[in-house]
């Protein structure tokens, strides 16, 4: 009996300990997470740091001094470049290890390893899109270049040096929550980060939907509704800029072939409104006489922040700015001589090709009038708690056949397997993008800037530039395929060599402008050039609204200061409202409105066209415009078929110049509607909806309350993000803050003998939710302010902003 009791008690104890240490479904091992010996309590950081810290690390060649300012931004002083990138890797890992892990893991299609089969679709998508294939190619490019090899390897060494000394209790909290351990960093992870950027900025496509449009509406309507140049435009390179080069011959269009529609590929939809702003003004427009440069890249906002801020100094460089956690060098920033920034170009660098296979074995495909061998790449996806999944991806000379419906849609049971489409994507090519940043970090003048750009492949960016020589410039730049007009607007015939990319636009013929007479350069993802540029880059770009507003403001600006630029970055003025609201108001027949609708009409009529947080007019206009757009393009709503809806620019043209267009007629009604009918109907219907949901116009109607702005944790953990906050801005205004997307880094740099930088990002340097530096810059960012950036000239420079010093030396 005694023995039984003892054994029972021991058994219960052991089972309890086992249960507490085991992961059940999504619930982390309870005790692993909660125990204060090694669990999450250990991640609670004190606000007090040791003012002096010394560490001995393997692999360093000299001494590295790192000074931390009041935001815990590191200022690295290294004796050589190896140690500089080593320290960057080490410090980034110390602050952002989980972010680095999860982002590269996601890009590499390896999420299933840690969360199980629910991530399998996403992993398979990334593998089949060729993210791994592309990263491997890119890595080859890096490693061919001895300089980049050194940089990547030193960075990797630094990251691993941190990981190797990590005890379980020091793991970032997300590892404890998900129940896995950090793994060795590999050079290819740096390439994965670039692939991720390409996926975000140049990985969407509308060819499939466009091809469906073509089948549904015919070429005449599609050409009319999806023109190659927008109605409203104010291009990046000023209209009339002369092209001082002899262009290469443009390839001949292939036989007009429209690929058969398949309902099987589901490429990621192009997300509208992804974009960024940058501009630089010449010295004659600034108060100091030197140029000022501003940049705010818009991305999905997350905690930990997308960017990691730091200053990097060695005998060859002294640069300040933001880096991508997991990649060496500063991506956007400045040094003593130059400053630079980027926005997305939106070049068409992703195309789909219809492939004709000989038979179901798919070993051969038809191309150039003969059968050609396909390649096969087996992707092994390890899955937590299950056997690995083997996924075979077929490659043609274009690239991977992304959709293989046998494995993707078994439940549909298609008898005749439709032919998949092959993907040609710039992100698959060998490249050496970090070299661009390496050179820009060290750049001294315009020539250095131009040289640096020739190394950049993808995603193509509008590189803006300002220097102490008082030069300003902008260049939509990347490796851009040489195409015939509209090549890749629709799915193409993969058997015709004429549809292949026929080479590249030479780098020195990418659109560029230096010191234009208007005294400023700018970009906001709109068309790169006017219609005289000899090459085809894409048929559509982002809407002109932000770019136009920026240009309008800069045209009249004089004696500009840092603060004028800061205020411009926060500008909420809606160019769309300026363009369309007067016409929409004119159409309204007020005699048909009821009292509440009339009240709302008066508000929007008096609205100042700013999407300010406290603006009620903004909420009304926004709902009205969206409803109008919905009603106009009702023909494009189809549950069974993916269709591309014409752009807002096209809607604007319709509203302003084609009041009797057939598109105003609603499908489901016997009457024939005109523009006036639709404008009125959109108004009453959207206003009634607002009245129903929000009551009488008042605080609830304020734009800051209507639009849902928030910043979430990368894993969407409740309590780890900001929650919803009250703010202005929207997609098509300079302050493009909407939902969880917006200015991920705002920077303004005043050039001059003493360069002065200002900047802020929404979050903090630390990725640890238990740190005081997890979101310490958020409020500054939300309130539209900038921090003065501390740009030290030597490790011993006195500054009352320095809080602590870390000294690294070799073992």
């Amino acid at each position, binding site marked *: 009996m*005694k*023995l039984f*009791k*003892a*054994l029972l*008690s*021991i058994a*219960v*104890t052991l089972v*309890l*300990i086992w249960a*507490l*240490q085991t992961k059940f479904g999504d619930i982390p091992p*309870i*005790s692993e997470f*909660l*125990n*204060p*010996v*090694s*669990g*999450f*309590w*250990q*991640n*609670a*950081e*004190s*606000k*007090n740091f040791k003012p002096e810290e010394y560490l001995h690390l393997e692999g360093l060649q000299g001494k590295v001094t790192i000074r931390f300012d009041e935001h815990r931004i590191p200022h690295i002083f290294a004796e050589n470049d190896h140690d500089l990138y080593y320290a960057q890797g080490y410090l980034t890992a110390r602050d952002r290890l989980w972010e680095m892990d999860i982002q590269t893991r996601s890009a590499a299609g390896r999420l299933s390893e840690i969360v199980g089969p629910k991530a399998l679709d996403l992993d398979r998508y990334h593998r089949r899109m060729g993210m791994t294939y592309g990263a491997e190619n890119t890595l080859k490019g890096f490693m061919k270049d001895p300089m980049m090899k050194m940089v990547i390897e030193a960075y990797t060494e630094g990251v691993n040096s941190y990981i190797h000394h990590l005890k*379980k209790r020091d793991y970032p*909290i997300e590892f404890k*929550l998900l129940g896995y351990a950090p793994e060795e960093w590999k050079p290819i992870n740096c390439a994965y980060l670039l692939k991720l950027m390409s996926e975000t900025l140049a990985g969407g496509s509308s060819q499939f939907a466009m091809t469906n449009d073509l089948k549904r509406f015919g070429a005449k309507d599609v050409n009319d509704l999806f023109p190659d140049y927008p109605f409203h435009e104010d291009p990046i390179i000023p209209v009339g800029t002369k092209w001082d080069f002899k262009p290469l011959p443009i390839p001949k269009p292939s036989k007009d072939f429209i690929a058969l529609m398949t309902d099987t590929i589901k490429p990621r939809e192009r997300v509208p409104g992804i974009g960024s702003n940058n501009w630089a003004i010449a010295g004659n427009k600034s108060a100091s006489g030197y140029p000022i440069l501003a940049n705010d890249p818009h991305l999905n906002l997350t905690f930990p922040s997308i960017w990691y801020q730091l200053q990097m100094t060695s005998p060859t460089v002294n640069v300040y700015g933001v880096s991508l956690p997991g990649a060496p060098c500063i991506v956007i920033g400045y040094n003593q001589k130059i400053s630079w920034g980027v926005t997305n170009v939106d070049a068409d660098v992703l195309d789909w090709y219809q492939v004709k296979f000989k038979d179901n074995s798919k070993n051969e495909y038809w191309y150039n009038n003969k059968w050609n061998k396909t390649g096969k790449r087996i992707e092994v996806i390890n899955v937590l708690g299950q056997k690995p999944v083997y996924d075979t991806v077929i490659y043609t000379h274009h690239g991977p056949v992304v959709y293989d419906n046998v494995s993707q849609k078994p439940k549909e049971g298609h008898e005749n397997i439709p032919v998949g489409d092959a993907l040609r994507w710039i992100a698959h090519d060998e490249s050496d993008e970090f070299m661009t940043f390496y050179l820009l970090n060290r750049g001294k003048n315009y020539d250095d800037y131009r040289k640096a750009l020739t190394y950049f492949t993808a995603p193509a960016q509008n590189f803006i530039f300002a220097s102490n020589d008082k030069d300003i410039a902008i260049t939509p730049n990347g490796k851009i395929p040489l195409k015939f007009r509209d090549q890749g607007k629709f799915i193409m015939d993969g058997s015709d060599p004429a549809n292949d990319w026929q080479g590249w636009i030479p780098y020195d013929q990418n659109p560029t402008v230096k010191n234009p007479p208007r005294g400023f350069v700018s970009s906001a993802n709109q068309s790169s050039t006017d219609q005289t540029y000899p090459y085809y880059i894409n048929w559509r770009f982002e809407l002109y609204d932000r770019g136009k507003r920026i240009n309008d403001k800069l045209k009249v600006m004089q004696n500009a200061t840092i603060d004028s630029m800061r205020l411009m970055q926060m500008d909420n003025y809606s160019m769309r409202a300026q363009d369309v609201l007067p016409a929409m108001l004119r159409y309204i027949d007020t005699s048909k409105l009821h009292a509440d609708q009339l009240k709302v009409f008066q508000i929007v009529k008096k609205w100042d066209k700013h999407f300010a947080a406290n603006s009620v007019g903004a909420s009304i206009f926004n709902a009205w415009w969206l409803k109008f757009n919905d009603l106009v393009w009702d023909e494009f709503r189809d549950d069974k078929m993916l269709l591309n809806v014409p752009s807002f620019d096209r809607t604007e043209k319709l509203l302003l110049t084609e009041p009797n267009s057939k598109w105003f007629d609603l499908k489901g009604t016997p009457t024939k509607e005109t523009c006036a009918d639709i404008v009125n109907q959109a108004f009453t219907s959207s206003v009634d909806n607002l009245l129903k949901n929000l009551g009488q116009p008042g605080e609830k109607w304020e734009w800051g309350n209507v639009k849902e702005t928030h910043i979430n944790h990368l894993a969407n*953990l*409740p*309590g*780890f993000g900001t929650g919803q906050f009250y703010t202005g801005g929207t997609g098509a205004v300079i302050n493009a803050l909407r939902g969880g997307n917006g200015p991920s880094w705002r920077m303004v740099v005043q050039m001059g003998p003493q360069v002065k930088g200002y900047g802020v990002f929404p979050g903090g340097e630390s990725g640890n*939710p*238990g740190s*005081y530096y997890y979101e310490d810059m958020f409020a500054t960012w939300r309130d539209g302010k900038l921090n003065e950036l501390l740009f030290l000239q030597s490790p011993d420079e006195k500054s009352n902003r320095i809080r602590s010093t870390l000294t690294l030396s070799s073992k």
Partner: protein
Amino acid sequence: MLFLIILILSFISSFFLPWWAAAAIAFLTAWVIGKTSGKTFWSGFGAIFVLWVILALIKSIPNDNILASRVIQLFPLPHQWILLLLITALIGGLVGGLAALSGVLAKKAFSK
């Protein structure tokens, strides 16, 4: 006495051994000096309960409980970080108590 010994030994072990070492310590200590089952259970329970409260607070107080206040929001509970401390300590206490009880019962079973 039992309470204090388990508390002190587990505290020391927490610096270099995993959390479940506390269970082994409670078990062995109870085997050596444990007397009645009830008292031993509560000594083990109390020791680890108190230890985990102390260990958690050593980290959480200088942190102004920022992290605990975030983490509690992951649980379907009121957003009071103190609840998280309570859950943590109860789990530790339960393991400590059961391990100590097992220790004393095992002694009784094998000591004749």
